């Protein structure tokens, strides 16, 4: 059997244009997941400076309590909200909630019931909520 090559590789995985908003949510879920994991590990390292005493802690705070630090934290807030809300949508979908009844694919092969407006709406809502949470986070951090 001829070996099939993965022609597009990671570029194919990252291309959000071909399959609509569901595909966009798929890669955004993974991208936010990786971002949050990176932040989580950095947060563990960052908070560990407390065991070195007050001076080390204050020095670390000086690094993070900057405009850039606040913007990164706002991005983390946005990523967390999107990842959470979209994750709940995925869990409900895998549990059969909101995906419609399965049916035989007959001609003229309309869209499958799973690709319905309920889930699309949830994706848009998760993006909107993430944006709102980011704005709220920026407001708290910058004290505007």
């Amino acid at each position, binding site marked *: 059997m001829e070996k099939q090559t993965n022609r597009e590789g*990671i570029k194919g995985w990252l291309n959000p244009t071909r399959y609509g908003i569901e595909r966009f949510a798929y890669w955004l879920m993974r991208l936010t997941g*990786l971002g949050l994991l990176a932040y989580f590990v950095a947060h563990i390292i960052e908070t560990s400076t*407390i065991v070195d005493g007050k001076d080390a802690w*204050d020095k670390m705070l000086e690094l993070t*309590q900057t405009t850039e630090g606040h913007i990164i934290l706002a991005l983390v807030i946005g990523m*967390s909200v999107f990842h959470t809300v979209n994750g709940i949508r995925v869990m409900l979908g895998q549990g059969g909630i909101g995906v419609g009844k399965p049916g035989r694919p007959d001609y003229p092969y309309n869209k499958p019931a799973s690709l319905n407006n309920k889930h699309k709406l949830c994706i848009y809502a998760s993006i909107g909520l993430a944006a709102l949470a980011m704005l709220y986070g920026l407001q*708290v951090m910058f004290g505007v």
Partner: protein
Amino acid sequence: MRESVVMKIHYGTALGAVALVAIHILFRMTQNFADSLEFESVIANYEFLPYALLLEVILVLISIHGFNGLRVILLELRQGRTYEKAVTYGCIAAMAAVIIYGSRTILIAGMGIV
């Protein structure tokens, strides 16, 4: 372990982490954000046993969820017996390292050895 069981753990840890991280964030909002990050305030948080336990549980839940998520992403990109084993054991090792390192901070700060 069956992949279906792993996914149930993945979803369970996600739901648990969401609830507990919400409490963790609310703790930061009980006072001014900058004040809550003062050395004395953070140490007081660590010395409060229920909060220290909450941090430990969050650490374990997010480590399991995060590194299993990374494993899933890496397995979607490429497959193969050796590769899959390397990814699985690599993620377990990284998860254990993060849990041990984070627990060390919680333990030292919580016992007041700072």
